[in-house]
């Protein structure tokens, strides 16, 4: 037993904020043990003591006994600073839970529903004797049932996410067929059913299907046969723990805790050896046994970078040789241009990370930091508890596994903006350098030549809108997180306008950087939310867009405009956004405020921005 477990057993609801730090480094059995200790806590009491704790309600339903998921989920969510409220359905009640819109599960209004499927779902219904055709028929019935359940779910649990999983194929089934032809066909029909479950994600934005094959390929047993036979627990504790880890990342991301930056140490992390001692020709980056291991790690970092993860180098080295190596070394896979910043100096790494966060206009809690030094890892963990710290070991072949063991950068859908993000941040660095050449901010903004378009979002980019609501924390007036299906529902609502803010300037196109949600009710225009990416605020874009929205409101006959603010730990800087634009405060408390504007404010034009605004939808925007 570890000290951590002892600490966790003593923990009370009042101490919950300390839990994240206590469980941060736990894995496997230790984390499940921690989860069991934490599952004792009454979530109501934790929330009473710490009302700001994100506490998703997770409904667990499925075919077999799933009790092992409760401590696993509790532990995994605690790692991300979340409080799991788990509602476990009765044994084998998934069809009733999901296909009946009046079920208790839907009444509980969970944000995440885990429908855990297992191979016994099929095996239990086979006749005796059975043939491949029977398996095919049962698989077909069950997948159709799942699809039907997903349909009811979409119509009933608006905004919630349904998590399905693929079915492991047990040898105890295949080996019952003695002819190899039938055995191969069983493998084929089984995979086809799994493919159908995976493809459901393409048509149902509210569905996530966890593929269990990669977890099984790591060597986790699919089941413990005795637990399966005696207790109907058809998936092993180890597999459920791996599954729970994926759910933890999904919940973190849904709660707005996306990781955006991968900060890498260099010596013995990105390359082998110490640059300051071995020199550029002495470091291991390719060719040799160890060199190939480092090359593989660099390639994976680059691959993540191609999908919107911002790479940064944070190294204790002199700057000049580091930059020269990243620029000129013939065999390096990761180059200077792959990084949004290279910070090579002798100052503590947590200070460098904090400055990097400030430069990127991000919180350090959106950082993942990789280093081989336990000293550096420990210091960053202590000084910046929100950073996910991954310590790699002495064996470089395992660096990739360490980096990918957790889905830190998982997102529901990748958008064009994601792919362009690293380039945009590099443009931002050019902008910052440009800024330093000006005496005043006004002069800078005028020279920046900003153009902004405000228009109804087209159907193809609803995922990006959802993502902005999930990722934006600072300039987000109500921080209402919207899953893709919710954005689609708003887009389809004739009373609502989902307006996209796009901007560009002399350094490049910023893409879709903000969203305004408007709802018209009788003569009142409600600004349901207003959010803007941290990359572009404080340039006047927010004032220009709000001015256009208000002009439109009164031009189109609204008698008043209403707006609201909901405080979070991160959006304090926009608390007075509406009052500064002339709104009167009609209600205010510590957590929220409501505002009202009854007449057109004196126009304060933002003259350094060229704004094009359109509020009516065109038919092409409705197509998908």
């Amino acid at each position, binding site marked *: *037993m570890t000290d951590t*477990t*002892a600490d966790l*057993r003593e923990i009370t609801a009042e101490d919950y904020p300390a839990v994240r730090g206590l469980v941060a480094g736990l894995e496997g*059995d230790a984390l499940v*043990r921690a989860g*069991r*200790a934490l*599952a*004792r806590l009454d979530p109501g009491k934790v929330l009473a003591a710490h009302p700001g704790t994100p506490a998703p309600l997770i409904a667990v339903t499925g075919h077999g*006994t799933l*009790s*092992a998921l409760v*401590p696993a989920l509790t532990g995994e969510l605690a790692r991300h600073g979340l409080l799991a409220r788990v509602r476990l359905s009765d044994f084998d009640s998934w069809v009733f839970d999901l296909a009946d819109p009046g079920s208790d599960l839907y009444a509980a209004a969970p944000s995440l529903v885990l429908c855990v499927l297992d191979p016994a779902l099929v095996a239990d219904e086979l006749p005796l004797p059975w043939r491949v055709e029977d398996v095919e028929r049962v698989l077909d019935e069950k997948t159709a049932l799942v699809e039907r359940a997903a349909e009811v779910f979409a119509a009933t649990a608006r905004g919630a996410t349904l998590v399905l999983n693929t079915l492991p194929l047990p040898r105890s089934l295949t080996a019952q067929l003695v002819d190899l032809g039938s055995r191969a066909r069983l493998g084929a029909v089984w995979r086809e059913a799994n493919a159908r479950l995976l493809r459901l994600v393409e048509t149902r934005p509210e569905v996530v299907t966890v593929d269990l094959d990669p977890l099984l390929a790591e060597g986790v047993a699919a089941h*413990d046969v*005795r*637990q399966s036979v*005696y*207790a109907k*627990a058809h998936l092993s*504790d180890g597999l459920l723990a791996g599954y729970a880890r994926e759910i933890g990342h999904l919940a973190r991301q849904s709660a707005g805790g996306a990781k955006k930056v991968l900060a890498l140490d260099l010596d013995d992390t990105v390359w082998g050896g110490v640059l300051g001692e071995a020199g550029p020709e002495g470091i291991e980056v390719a060719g040799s046994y160890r060199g190939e291991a480092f090359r593989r790690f660099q390639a994976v970092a680059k691959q993540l970078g191609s999908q919107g993860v911002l790479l940064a180098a944070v190294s204790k080295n002199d700057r000049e040789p580091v930059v020269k190596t990243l620029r000129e070394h013939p065999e390096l896979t990761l180059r200077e241009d792959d990084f949004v910043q290279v910070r090579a100096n002798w100052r503590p790494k947590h200070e460098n990370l904090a400055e990097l966060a400030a430069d990127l206009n991000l919180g350090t809690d959106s950082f993942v930091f990789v280093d081989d030094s336990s000293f550096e890892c420990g210091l960053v963990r202590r000084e910046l508890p929100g950073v996910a710290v991954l310590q790699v070991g002495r064996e470089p072949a395992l660096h990739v596994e360490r980096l990918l063991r957790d889905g830190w950068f998982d997102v529901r859908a990748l958008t064009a903006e994601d792919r362009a993000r690293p380039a945009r941040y590099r443009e931002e660095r050019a902008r910052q350098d440009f800024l330093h050449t000006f005496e005043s901010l006004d002069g800078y903004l005028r020279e920046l030549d900003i153009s902004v378009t405000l228009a109804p979002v087209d159907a193809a980019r609803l995922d990006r809108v959802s993502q902005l609501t999930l990722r934006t924390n600072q300039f987000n007036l109500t921080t209402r997180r919207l899953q893709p299906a919710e954005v689609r529902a708003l887009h389809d609502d004739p009373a609502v306008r989902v307006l996209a803010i796009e901007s560009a300037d002399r350094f490049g196109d910023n893409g879709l950087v903000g969203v305004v949600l408007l709802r018209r009710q009788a003569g009142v225009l409600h600004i349901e939310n207003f959010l803007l990416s941290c990359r572009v605020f404080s340039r006047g874009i927010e004032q220009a867009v709000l001015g256009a929205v208000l002009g439109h409101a009164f031009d189109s006959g609204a008698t008043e405009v209403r707006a609201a603010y909901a405080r979070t730990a991160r959006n304090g800087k926009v608390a007075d956004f509406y009052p500064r634009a002339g709104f009167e405060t009609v209600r205010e408390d510590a957590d929220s405020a409501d505002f009202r504007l009854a007449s057109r404010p004196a126009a304060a034009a933002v003259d350094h921005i060229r704004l094009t605004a359109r509020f009516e939808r065109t038919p092409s925007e409705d197509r998908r």
Partner: protein
Amino acid sequence: MKTVDDFVTLLRDELALPVTADDLGRGLDTVESWDSVHLLALCTVLERETGRSLPLADVLEASSLKDVYLLAVAP
């Protein structure tokens, strides 16, 4: 895990059950915080700790924690 005390420690540490040696002879239904799902987790933990395979069907029919202990330490 060899002694009754080891077993009690394991129940407290691994399963977060607030039990003492006096609780071992009680009917499982009367053990504080006990839930039937604990039995499955207990089997897994015992097999890991003892490095031996337990007769799971017998454990599932146990009426008290003492029964489980005896199965776990049976020669």
